């Protein structure tokens, strides 16, 4: 603690000396240092990638705490870091509601999913879902929803990278932003290609460590300024507030007051989506046992929980020290709250450090999404469906590597294409699809004996289709000034921005109805085997030893 205090004191003296301007050269240098360090780690990690298990799961050799950090690194995206702090700074309490949904969601993963998935699966979500059902159709469906979720999430991150640049590096023109998106995409391809899951995991661990240290230090700093009195901090946020009445930022309603149903829809998607996110599920395969999978979720819950507590202080800190007006006027808008707060606290040096962390965040998350999507394509579609399980593992990894390049290029093209578009809905859509298409099938196959192939297919395609359809016919696409097609075009038949409140119950309902009307008899022996293996860990994939 005393060491931390002296660091804080050190920073404080620098504030006086520092000019309060952004320094692109400094920002880029700190980011390049991060890239250099992680690249060395990735190259070293990539040396042992021999088998499919090495490439997809890092040989299942990570410990619970390591994987917990990696999960936090995978989960705390730029939307969490920049988006939530910004939302709290501008909309007050309503931003905090995101944090709570994102955290409580982990209890679903801990209590119902993580250990059982680890015990029954090998590389992908589809391994578990197709265990006792018809292999090919279920695998194709699970791979489809996996690719859809990864793609929506990936696009959101890449677009975020472009927006971040305009703020941090002072690059405002389209060409400059496109170049940065290309650099981020190229780095991601390089990391995943060379390092596989092991390299990706280490990038996530390093990033999670930096992110939590950085956010933690800023939190302590803000608290020091406010005499460790939360009420003082809230008072100064209110004093600087632009809302009417000024203390409206302390209670819910500023962002969602006009449409509580929309907020409930979002809350359902957040809490049920996490345990259906394929890149989160895949992380459970990187540890040697179910017990380690449990430990990793516990570490993740504490790291993520601590981080979200920091965001509360940082968000109100930004409201107090920077002000909602300044934040909204800055390039990058809401997303600029955290960087501007770091500038106000520690000057250009801290801004450079926080900016580098934000880039590292995007890089680590896109790498995790890419390896998940590539694994799902190579393992579920290429090896199991196209090669019908008869291809060689080497061939499968080769396909996975090629898929990485294809996905990387698609992500770069998509990221450049959506520059300047309001695509914040993509993250919410990814959660909604995960909750409506993936979670029902995961829970049914783990806990309901009567679940059938038809139920799985109806639930997955129905959940995916309804979530996407509702988004297209929502105010996100048309009918309001902030819509993608503007106010002039109006085909918004669905009144909410988030499809979850309809599509998630629909996904559960379709799985149930499909199973009841099913004519195909599922194998009771496989169901018994799955039940026994999921609870005892018998026959679970072991760590590879080298």
């Amino acid at each position, binding site marked *: 603690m005393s060491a931390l205090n002296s660091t804080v004191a050190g920073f404080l003296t620098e504030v006086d000396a520092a000019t309060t301007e952004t320094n692109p050269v400094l920002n880029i240098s700190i980011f390049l240092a991060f890239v250099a360090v992680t690249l060395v780690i990735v190259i070293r990690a990539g040396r042992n990638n021999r*088998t*499919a298990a090495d490439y997809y799961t890092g040989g299942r050799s990570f410990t619970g705490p390591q994987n917990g950090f990696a999960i936090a690194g995978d989960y705390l995206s730029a939307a969490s870091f920049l988006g939530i702090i910004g939302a709290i700074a501008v909309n007050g*309490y309503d931003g*905090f*509601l995101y944090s*709570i*949904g994102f*955290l*409580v969601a*982990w*209890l*679903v993963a801990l*209590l*119902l999913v993580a250990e059982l998935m680890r015990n029954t699966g090998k590389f992908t979500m589809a391994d578990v879902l*197709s*265990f006792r059902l018809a*292999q090919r159709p279920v695998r194709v469906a699970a791979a489809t929803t996996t690719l859809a979720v990864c793609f929506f999430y990936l696009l959101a991150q890449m677009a975020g990278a472009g927006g971040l640049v305009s703020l941090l590096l002072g690059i405002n023109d389209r060409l400059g932003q496109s170049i940065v998106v290309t650099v981020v995409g190229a780095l991601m391809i390089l990391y995943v290609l060379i390092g596989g899951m092991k390299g990706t995991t280490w990038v996530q661990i390093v990033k999670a460590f930096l992110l939590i240290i950085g956010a933690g230090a800023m939190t302590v700093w803000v608290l020091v300024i406010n005499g460790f*009195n*939360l*009420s003082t901090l*809230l*008072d100064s946020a*209110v004093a600087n507030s632009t809302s009417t009445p000024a*203390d409206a930022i*302390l*209670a*819910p*309603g500023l962002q*969602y007051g006009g449409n*509580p*149903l929309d*907020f*409930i829809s979002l*809350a359902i998607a957040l*809490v049920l989506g996490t345990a259906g996110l394929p890149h989160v599920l895949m992380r459970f395969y990187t540890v040697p046992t179910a*017990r380690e999978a*449990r430990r990793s979720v*516990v570490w993740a*819950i*504490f790291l993520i*929980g601590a981080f*979200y*507590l920091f965001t509360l202080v940082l968000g109100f800190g930004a409201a107090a020290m920077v002000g909602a007006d300044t934040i909204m006027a800055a390039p990058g808008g809401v997303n600029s709250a955290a960087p501007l707060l770091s500038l106000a606290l520690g000057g250009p040096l801290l801004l450079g450090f926080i900016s580098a962390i934000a880039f590292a965040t995007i890089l680590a998350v896109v790498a995790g999404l890419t390896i998940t999507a590539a694994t799902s394509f190579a*393992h579920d579609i290429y*090896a*199991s469906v196209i090669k019908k*399980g008869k*291809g060689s*593992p080497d061939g499968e990894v080769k396909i996975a590597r090629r898929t990485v390049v294809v996905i990387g290029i698609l992500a770069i093209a998509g990221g450049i294409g959506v520059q300047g578009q309001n695509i914040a809905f993509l993250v919410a859509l990814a959660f909604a699809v995960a909750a409506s298409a993936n979670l029902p099938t995961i829970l049914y196959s783990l806990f309901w004996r009567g679940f059938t192939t038809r139920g799985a297919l109806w639930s997955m395609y129905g959940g995916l289709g309804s979530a996407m359809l509702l988004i297209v016919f929502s105010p996100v696409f048309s009918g309001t000034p902030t819509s993608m097609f503007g106010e002039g075009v109006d085909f918004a038949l669905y009144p909410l921005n988030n499809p979850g409140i309809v599509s998630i119950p629909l996904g559960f309902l379709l799985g149930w109805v499909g199973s009841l009307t099913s004519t195909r008899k599922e194998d*009771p*022996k496989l169901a*018994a*085997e799955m*039940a*026994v293996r999921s*609870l*005892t*860990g*018998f*026959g679970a994939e072991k760590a590879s030893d080298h």
Partner: protein
Amino acid sequence: MTDSLKDAGAQDSIDYVDFENSDRFVHLKRTRRRFVVPLVIFFLVWYFGYVLVAAYLPDVMARPVWGSFNLGLLLGLGQFVTTFAITIWYVAFSNRTLDPLGAELRAELEQKVHA
């Protein structure tokens, strides 16, 4: 290593249907379910209850508790506390009760394969 869809081989000799109906496996399954299901119901009701109050009764949330610190912040931080507490409780229960039961059954299955 063939990357087939499922692990074939020695494990086929085990009668899983029979094993699943054995008393000790049923005991493990029930013990886990009895612990997990009430907790899941509790945290979902508590979370959605909180969400409903935040959505429809923002004035209740705005009630001050201590200085500018209001009921909404208190309940929100309460969600963090219960999440951490449930996590710790579940891990303790798993380590103490579920893991030994599972390990025993796993050892028994492994014996069957090698027999």
